[in-house]
């Protein structure tokens, strides 16, 4: 990996430029970098499971963010009904999400695997609507939040004071990335998943149970969105429609990182996170931060299509 990067001068230039920008920002607006990195952790944590199913085994899931929000709601009700701490709810939520992923795969997505990709898009778009409206019906559209006192913890370095709880997303993202890389490179099951992604027919004839791989990888990704859903609830207020924007952002991060590149997700997230938090640092211009995301997407797609022409 490292050698491949060094061989491409473009990557070095982009890397050095971004490093320079970050250092400049650190002096000018240090909180932008801190909050940007925290945001990046959240984005990366949610986009990584999508990179697993979209980039590795090529299943399109337009209901990705909605699964995350569903997990957040399950956590909310567990915490409210049983007085659980959200971190204690992590285990049951992950198990429930894994099983939910299995059920949804078995009854819906499995039947679209051999059909054109458009069918998968329409199906999962429908799933997203069912999940959102289902949550609306059960939990109403009223925003929900749980208050935890450690969420407001802060630290002071020099003259700047910033919230530290958001780093939990970075921790989660790093753990998910490390776990997925280990899974894909070192375990037999992970290698089988990569093989299925590259050639399902070839995988079948060397004795890999392709259907089992699909269902387990999909459920694993949904279980990982469950982890992010639990963490999301601890520091943000949730409402049924909150998931949609994360679906879109995850999609774009996967596209920016390049299909199948998991570490790329982390870099793309840092870029997006810092850019967004930079715009938000200007009073009254916070709403423009969504523009950043669209601008980045357009730039990345343009660069990629130019590269393709050469």
């Amino acid at each position, binding site marked *: 990996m490292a050698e491949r990067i060094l061989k491409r001068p473009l990557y070095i230039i982009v890397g050095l430029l971004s490093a320079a920008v970050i250092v400049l920002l650190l002096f000018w607006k240090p909180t932008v970098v801190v909050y940007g990195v925290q945001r990046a952790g959240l984005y990366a944590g949610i986009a990584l499971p999508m990179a697993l199913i979209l980039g590795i085994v090529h299943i399109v899931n337009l209901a990705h963010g909605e699964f995350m929000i569903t997990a957040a709601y399950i956590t909310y009700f567990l915490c409210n009904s049983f007085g659980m701490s959200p971190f204690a709810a992590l285990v049951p939520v992950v198990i429930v999400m894994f099983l939910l992923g299995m059920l949804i795969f078995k009854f819906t997505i499995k039947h679209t695997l051999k059909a054109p990709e458009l069918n998968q898009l329409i199906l999962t778009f429908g799933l997203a609507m069912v999940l959102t409206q289902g949550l609306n019906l059960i939990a109403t559209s009223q925003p929900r939040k749980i208050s935890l006192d450690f969420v407001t913890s802060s630290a002071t370095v020099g003259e700047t004071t910033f919230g530290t709880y958001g780093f939990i997303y970075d921790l989660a993202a790093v753990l998910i990335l490390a776990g997925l890389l280990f899974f894909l490179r070192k375990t037999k099951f992970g290698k089988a998943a990569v093989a299925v992604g*590259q*050639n399902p027919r070839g995988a*079948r*004839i*060397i*004795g*890999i149970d392709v259907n089992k791989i699909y269902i387990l990888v999909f459920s694993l990704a949904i279980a990982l969105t469950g982890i992010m859903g639990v963490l999301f609830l601890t520091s943000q207020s949730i409402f049924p429609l909150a998931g949609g924007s994360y679906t879109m952002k995850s999609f774009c991060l996967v596209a920016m990182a390049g299909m199948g590149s998991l570490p790329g997700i982390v870099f793309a997230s840092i870029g997006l996170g810092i850019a967004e938090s930079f715009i938000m640092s200007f009073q009254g211009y916070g709403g423009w931060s969504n523009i950043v995301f669209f601008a980045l997407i357009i730039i990345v797609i343009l660069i990629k299509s130019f590269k393709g022409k050469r």
Partner: protein
Amino acid sequence: MLEINGIDCYYGKLHVLRNLSFKIGDEAVGLFGPNGAGKTTLINAIISLIKPAAGDIIFDGENITTSETHTIAKKGIALVPQERELFPEMTVYENLELGAAFIPHVKNRTAERLEFVYNFFPVLKEREKQHAGTMSGGQQRMLAIGRALMADPKLLILDEPSLGLQPSIVSELFEKLAEMKKHISVLVTEQNVRESLKSVDRGYVLENGEIALEDTAENLKSNPHVIKAYLGI
């Protein structure tokens, strides 16, 4: 070893294989016939990539007609598909490794199988770290055969192994094939009848989904129909 009893296969309404039966013992068997005769369909039926509408497929005394492809692979049938079906973004080594990883009786003998395959195709050892998708057609074909051999199969099926290869490599390939049949049973489909008749013991000629001829390789070479239709003399 492999016994096919009266199978019928359809693609939609198209009747591709008609009440077809044949047998493979401890030998190398060739399956010849023009394009569209049903050779690849027959192979796909053996490894259950398509399900026959009627008839049985028995492997080692066990009915595998409705088994799934991956369980058939685990039982000892390895396929080298016409399209090779490699993992293009993995290295040669990784492709070979996966060939043994999911087959119960060889998964703990990867090193031993790897040595066997590297002996057979030394070029694969030289290119161990190269990505499969970047190799030439002939090398990819060797890799596909190597990957199938990693599984130490009882029956090796090769679907048109000479397709798209230059003549010198084709004759080298069939020399290797003649060597392989000392260890395992081989079923090979071919349009290059002349070369493959040198390395098989017996042959079937498939025409319009039916067995038109069945004989030993020696007799097929002198059969007037075969000479006229396939050897082109």
